[in-house]
């Protein structure tokens, strides 16, 4: 056997060992970072009485998706790409139109007394709706609220909404509350 001076060894197999480890990590791990849309469900209560509070029709923004993935917004068929702009109009109601939601004065930090919309977005889908379409609609509705908030953040604080401290974000959220309610789905289109 050849005797090497102490402290030296062959490094030829080092590359093989490292390759082996590398391949192990390539196989055993995944690259994808989990991300998604957060929602909160309403608590389950079977005894809950039907909500009998009258909500004025002008305050509700009805979005229906049927089993063919077609949209019906406020009684009119709508292309999904127009949903965001239409929803923004509903949230802001800049000209205080009579068919768009009412507003009530409310004290909000950083803003003083502002008119806060009473609008509710109501989303109802069919059991035959495709999940992809459902997510797209959810995404557009959330995007509409985000864009409105972003605009206010730029106007009032001169910064992006995401860069604002938490108190200011809360103030904007109170100014434009995001109320998306999901009705029980229908089963008209079948499976």
């Amino acid at each position, binding site marked *: 056997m050849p005797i090497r001076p102490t402290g030296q060894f062959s490094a030829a197999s080092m590359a093989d060992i490292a390759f082996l480890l590398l391949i192990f990590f390539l196989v055993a791990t995944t690259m994808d970072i989990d991300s998604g849309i957060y929602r909160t469900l309403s608590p389950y209560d079977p005894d809950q009485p039907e909500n009998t509070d009258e909500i004025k029709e002008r305050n509700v923004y009805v979005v229906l998706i049927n089993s063919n993935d077609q949209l019906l917004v406020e009684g009119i068929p709508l292309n999904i790409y127009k949903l965001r702009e239409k929803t923004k109009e509903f949230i802001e109601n800049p000209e205080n139109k009579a068919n768009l939601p009412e507003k009530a004065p409310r004290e909000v930090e950083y803003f003083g007394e502002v008119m806060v919309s009473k609008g509710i977005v109501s989303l109802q889908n069919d*059991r*035959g709706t495709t*999940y992809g379409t*459902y997510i797209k609609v959810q*995404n557009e509705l959330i995007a509409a609220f985000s864009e409105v908030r972003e605009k206010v953040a730029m106007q009032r604080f001169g910064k992006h909404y995401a860069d604002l401290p938490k108190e200011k974000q809360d103030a904007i959220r109170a100014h434009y509350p995001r109320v998306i309610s999901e009705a029980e789905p229908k089963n008209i289109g079948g*499976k």
Partner: protein
Amino acid sequence: MAKFGRKGKGGLQEISTASLPDIVFMLLFFFMVSTVMRETTLKIDQHLPGATEVKKLEKKSLVSYINIGKPKLTFQTLYGTEPRIQLNDAFAKVADIRDYVTAEREKMDENERPLMTVSLKVDDKTKMGVIVDVKQELRKASALKINYSTRKVEVIE
């Protein structure tokens, strides 16, 4: 016409492989840092829908996953082609979700339990019927914070 002379007679010079381990180690460290360990083996086909308004899932320990989609080809003889629910490594029924949520909740620290999030990883071609049933079960199990797992895209297709 001029000819190119052959320089240096007798075979090619060998490249030194002394730096090869360093290069491979570099790659190795890159993969170790940028990836996460696979937790479950998916038995279903899953193509997540794209969305623009996504947020990252913050604490991994607070998240439980529910996978829904069409069984992979090798499982189709046994489980059919209708969308199925997969919890951990096995197919499950809608009724199993409540037990699953309870079991997942038990694993967490007591002070973290209210923050539990259920991530729904659903194939985008699935019909809403299954998801509605799952959501109803989650409400009954009072796991109210949910997350629809999506890919981040710039514009919706």
